[in-house]
């Protein structure tokens, strides 16, 4: 080979072969599923709708990862717990409102109250996390900061388990959210609209306010931003706060779809949201939103579309495998994500 002037990296070759094999499997699975015609168009639409709703929650969480990564270059491993803390605390308000009948007589107001509380708690947790765990480690090696984040993640999980108990708490059902419009469940519509409006708000905040500009400046170049008079500490805190608000809202939206919360609920969505952030290109805010939607749809459609065609029983059990596999594949083949990274210095 070398004589031919071809320099093939052996390990790279193997990786590509594995990748192509997986792609072939996906194609074969898809074709054979579609040939059997097991699912009707209506069912496929339901899968996609559920995927979009779920994906928009991932998108909201992913924003926290992507913004913090942009500013600090740190994977805030504990962000999943920021999400959990809001949803878990919001349960108590939702429950209280359900008991005194507020939720039925005044559903929109109560929903807003729960969202506000959840967002406030998540923001508080995110700010505390930044202040206590990460601030001292800004100049430390990445491994040290990442291990701190992992430790903080477990500390938060088990703190909430200790505080509120380890059981699963069931959110009250809201009467007016039952049923469906045009064949689409109302909850899905609410979640999607909620997520989209948060995304638009965030976009306006980042583009049009002074603090938004400061956040962009710090993600571009910390030192120069500081020289230009940006208060870096405040800006980083603001970034965490914005991520916290998004995660808090995501927590309530999650509870609207899945109805139940527990102390461990943040872990898997956290990793998936990170996947979404990487998928869209980390540091890239529109990318995170898009990555979330893509991941959500893949995860919802994938088991039925790719796996059942391959003759795998109970394919829904493997939906997390699809998400994790996507994570690994993106990291291998396109670590800069679909829309590309928005980082000042390339960190490959």
């Amino acid at each position, binding site marked *: 080979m070398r004589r031919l002037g071809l320099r093939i990296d052996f390990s790279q070759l193997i990786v590509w072969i594995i990748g192509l094999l997986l792609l072939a499997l996906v194609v074969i699975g898809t074709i054979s599923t579609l040939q059997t015609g097991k699912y009707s168009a209506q069912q496929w639409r339901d899968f996609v709708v559920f995927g979009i709703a779920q994906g928009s929650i991932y998108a909201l969480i992913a924003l926290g990862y992507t913004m913090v990564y942009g500013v600090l270059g740190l994977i805030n491993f504990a962000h999943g717990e920021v999400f959990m803390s809001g949803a878990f605390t919001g349960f108590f308000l939702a429950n209280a409102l359900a008991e005194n009948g507020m939720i039925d007589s005044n559903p929109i107001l109560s929903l807003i109250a729960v969202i506000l509380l959840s967002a406030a708690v998540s923001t508080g947790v995110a700010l505390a996390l930044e202040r206590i765990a990460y601030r001292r480690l800004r100049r430390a090696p990445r491994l040290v900061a990442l291990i701190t984040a992992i430790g903080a993640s*477990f*500390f938060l999980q088990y703190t909430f388990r200790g505080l509120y108990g380890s059981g699963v708490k069931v959110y009250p059902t809201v009467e007016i959210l039952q049923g469906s419009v045009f064949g689409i469940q109302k909850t899905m519509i609410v979640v999607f609209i909620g997520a989209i409006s948060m995304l638009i708000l965030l976009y306006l905040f980042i583009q049009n306010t002074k603090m938004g500009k400061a956040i962009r400046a710090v993600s571009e170049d910390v030192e120069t931003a500081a020289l230009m008079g940006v208060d870096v500490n405040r800006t980083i805190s603001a970034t965490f706060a914005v991520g916290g608000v998004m995660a808090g809202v995501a927590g309530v939206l999650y509870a609207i779809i899945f109805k139940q919360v527990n102390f461990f609920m943040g872990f898997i969505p956290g990793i998936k949201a990170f996947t979404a952030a990487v998928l869209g290109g980390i540091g890239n805010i529109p990318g995170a939103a898009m990555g979330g939607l893509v991941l959500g749809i893949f995860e919802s459609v994938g088991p039925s579309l790719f796996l059942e065609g391959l003759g795998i029983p109970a394919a829904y059990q493997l939906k997390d495998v699809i998400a994790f596999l996507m994570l*690994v594949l993106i990291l291998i083949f396109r670590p800069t994500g679909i829309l590309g990274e928005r980082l000042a210095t390339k960190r490959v």
Partner: protein
Amino acid sequence: MTSGLRSAFNFGLLGGVVAWHACLVGMVESFSERRLIGETVELSYVWLVGIVLLIGYLKARNVQAPGIAVFHSIVSGATIGAALTLLALLTSVFNLRDIFPFASPRLVELLTLERGIADALGLLFPILGGAVLGAAAGGLALAPPIWRRTITVALLVTVLIGLLRDIFAAIVPRDVVSLIFTSRGLLPMGALVVFVVSGALTWLIGTFGLPGISTDASSASRSVATPWKYAYLGFGVLFLLTFPLWGKLFLSNVANFIGLYIIMALGLSLVIGFAGMLDLGFVAFFAIGAYTMAILTSPKIGTFTLTFWQALPFSMLFAFLSGVVLGLPVLRMRGDYLAIATLGFGEIIRILALSNFLKPYMGGAQGITSVARPEIAGFVISKPEPFYYIVLIGCVVAWFVAARLKHSRLGRAWMAIREDEDVAQAMGINRVETKLLAFAIGAILGGMSGAFFAGLVGSVVPKSFELLVSINVLAVIIVGGMGSLPGVLVGALVLVGLPELLREFAEYRMLVYGAVLVVMMLFRPEGLWPEAVRKRELHKDETSAPQRVTTSVTASTTPSVKD
């Protein structure tokens, strides 16, 4: 002066937050039935007392002038007490139980010394107690180092022995037990004896040193006189060899788990400590080792029925191969991406093992039972006591491999890559091959540990292979000191041994692990038993500040994953 007082108050507030946390997550109330000394000293109090002592101590170390230091410690201690009084008031005035299950009447009773909030003395009790303890901690901080160490060690040993009462009761003759223990903890007299004896021993060792070991403070170059060296070594070997004989079933079980973790941690130490790659999916190799053992030996699956010893090489081989296969794609990634990708792999393996899809081969959620036990000369080893020796041999082998690799050409290549990948490559080190070897050799050790685990427990279920295992192993390495082999032993003893012994803490194990990881990274990133080299590096710039408790971290010296 006022700013000093404010700082004392802030320390107190910090302690107050920690104490509230401890109360509300239930660490106080759950242990209220646990007697430590006599009928009065309960574990729940020891926990709060520990917080106050620590905060008071840190505060006093923070102040220069002696008289003021004690005063400040008192202020800090009283602040913590006031926080607890406030908690007691809040808990009894409002009904917080619906939200915080542990904000219960029992907590109020504990905090007010069973007097309730109606009694002024009950309300004042935490504040007074906090002040007194703060004074004690301040005094301790000012005492000469030898006394400080003596008292600290003696206190810790007394608490530990009180906690481990049941274990001593199991291995020591009953007459001796009844001399110092009650049925639930230490006798007051016994506590005094333990305190005095352990204190005296610490004082003697601190003053005169252990025979044969020079008391040269620079512990890195500790020279041991030869006859004594053999004596210590002999004692150590004797201790390890006779362990199951006097340790009985319970301690042997604990020792086996410590051993399995040591093997895993040594493997992961190659990957994280030497080569600087943060692998969060190490449990995958443990799982692959265990499942290979189970599939190859269990008649329940039935395709193969090898013996334990025949299957062991296959377990390690498959772990090695999967290390290569998983390693190849991820090794090009930057450090933090590698962590997440390996985590993803670990979860994929677990979900696959759990799925119905692979149930015919891997048993699904029920796992695989009746895994073959090791057999030596017709004698089947199924009890933990004899199994201990197999685990011990495994540990020795793993230790030997890791220690020999560390200073080999390969080991130095790993460390070069850890410090600077580009420079290492420029020096002619094959980046991919070197990293892959770290990954794969680490995987072999993980697989070996998994195979032993399967043989020891006799069954494998997916639940044993959760991410928590990876985090436990990671914590063992971090606490011991990254890249330090003796550190692995210390870490495993502290993080695996203690929680197994103190079963009451099982509930709070992960909470403590998380806190330990954060605190270690913030204040002592080099670990409890760091490598001599790294310790020197990390402390290079603090030449004349031995008084400081905190350690500054500089970006260039801790092992880092390069961008």
